[in-house]
């Protein structure tokens, strides 16, 4: 293996030779990429290219057939989604997975689960310290809701929110876990152009404010070109391009496989 330049920092997340086979279908074929600390990294490709599968492998929901995922240069010492969450990984889902019977506020409070740890007995008896902690958590939940402009809906059941607000709530819930890497699976799906624009701004804001690294899947290519620092393009489970938006745009394989066929 060639010596890596010493000055370049270790990437936050590395995916090496990842393959994923479902029966006869090769959903991911030897995919490798690295996501650097602090960047917004886009993942584009036609439907069925394996983008969501890649997210699922990274977040330990789907075991890979071969290959490995490195976190800060080391093998991840965890195999369950909840352990990964504690490590600093959060995600949203393409088909939105909120806790529908809970209130908007409680959805975010569930995201704060890790920070609410207290002995069950102290909690049940409601000691003074416990009550103060509870208030702090609720305060934190409200701040996060304010960030995604949902503070007025805090007491509504999550199931009652319209589509776009549900997407923002899922984002707030993911942020509540205080991630270092945030995986967003089609966060702009079903939004109108103005909402998409707002979302772009919001993603940049949270990246800066929370010192985040963001990995994002989105179909709207112009939006991705504007938003992302770097992009990877998947097609039929293979990574066919990787680089800056400008470079990817001019890559002949991308034009042929993705942009060409999509037009």
């Amino acid at each position, binding site marked *: 293996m060639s010596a890596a330049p010493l000055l370049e920092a270790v990437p936050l997340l590395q995916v090496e030779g990842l393959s994923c086979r479902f029966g006869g279908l090769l959903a991911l074929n030897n995919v490798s990429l690295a996501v650097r600390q602090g960047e917004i990294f886009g993942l584009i490709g036609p439907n069925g290219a394996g983008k*969501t599968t890649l997210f699922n492998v990274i977040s330990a929901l*789907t075991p890979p057939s071969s290959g490995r995922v490195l976190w800060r240069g080391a093998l991840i010492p965890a195999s369950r989604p909840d352990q990964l969450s504690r490590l600093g990984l959060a995600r949203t889902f393409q088909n939105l997975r909120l806790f529908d019977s809970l209130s908007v506020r409680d959805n975010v409070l569930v995201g704060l689960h890790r920070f609410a740890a207290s002995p069950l007995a102290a909690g049940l008896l409601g000691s003074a310290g416990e009550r103060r902690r509870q208030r702090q958590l609720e305060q934190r939940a409200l701040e996060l809701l304010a960030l995604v402009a949902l503070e007025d809906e805090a007491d509504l059941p999550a199931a009652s929110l319209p589509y776009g607000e549900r997407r923002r709530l899922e984002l707030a819930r993911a942020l509540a876990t205080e991630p270092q890497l945030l995986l967003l699976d089609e966060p702009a799906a079903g939004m109108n152009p103005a909402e998409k624009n707002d979302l772009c701004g919001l993603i940049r804001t949270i990246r800066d404010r929370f010192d985040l690294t963001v990995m994002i899947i989105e179909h709207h290519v112009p939006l991705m070109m504007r938003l992302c620092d770097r992009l990877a393009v998947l097609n039929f489970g293979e990574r066919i391009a990787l680089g800056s938006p400008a470079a990817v745009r001019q890559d002949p394989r991308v034009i042929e496989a993705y942009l060409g066929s999509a037009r």
Partner: protein
Amino acid sequence: MELIQLLLNGLSLGAVYALFALGYTLVFSVLGVINFSHGAVFTLGAYFTYLLIGGQAGANGLLAGLQLPVALPFALALPLAGLASALVALLIERVAFRPLRQRGSDSLLALISSLGAGVILVNLIQLLMGAESYAIPIGTLGSLPAALRFAGAQVRTVQVLLLAISVLLLLLLSVWLEGTRSGKALQAVSEDPVTAQLLGIDSDGMIRLAFGISGFLAGVSGGLVGLSVSIAGPYFGISYGLKALGVLVLGGLGSVPGAMLGGLIIGLAEAFVPAEWSGWKDAVAYGFLFLILVLRPQGLLGRPLGTKV
């Protein structure tokens, strides 16, 4: 001679479990729900059979002393009892399952409402026929001898009959499922009801069919067990029903060959429990069930359980 007798005991018991479990499986595969009234329909089948062969109601129920004007031969009474049980199963589908299905309710609710239907049936039987046990006299079988000599051993005719009829029904069911249009349509509904509907299959009709067949199977096996070991009161189907759950999970929920295999294994295992341990016999099925759940949750012949992301 012991061995032959034990083997036959095990096989016939296993065949009954398999028939019972298949009734669960048919409904489970189309609805994804365990029909907890199944044991009560089994019991009902036994009582129907008893009445149809001309048996007299005991002294403790509302029907005290009642006797049907005709006494049918067993060969006719059994299928008729099966049909009557099928009608009851259809009625249960109508009142306990369909309203919930049409509303798209949680399948847990159907479990409860089907149980309510079972409670009603069992207590209705008790109200009408009393809590006493009934024996179906062996004379019902006409000129057949009570025991046969087989490979140098004495075996009860009833058990040979029980085994033969169960195996015949299991075979018919397999042929129907694999070899006919309606059988395949039922399988399609169990794979994916929405797609099946789009392909022009009448899902509701198939669900009714599944209930009807499972009711028929329950009724017939009830009659057969009643003939073999007598009807021990309105609650006698429940323990069979519970063990059949074990059979079901052992073989794999929703798998027809699995239900048969599971029935065979548990029936044989119970038959070979030594007499001095007979008190523990009832635990055999559940022990197996526990073991299989730990080692292979999808059952022997079931498909792996996956989660969708």
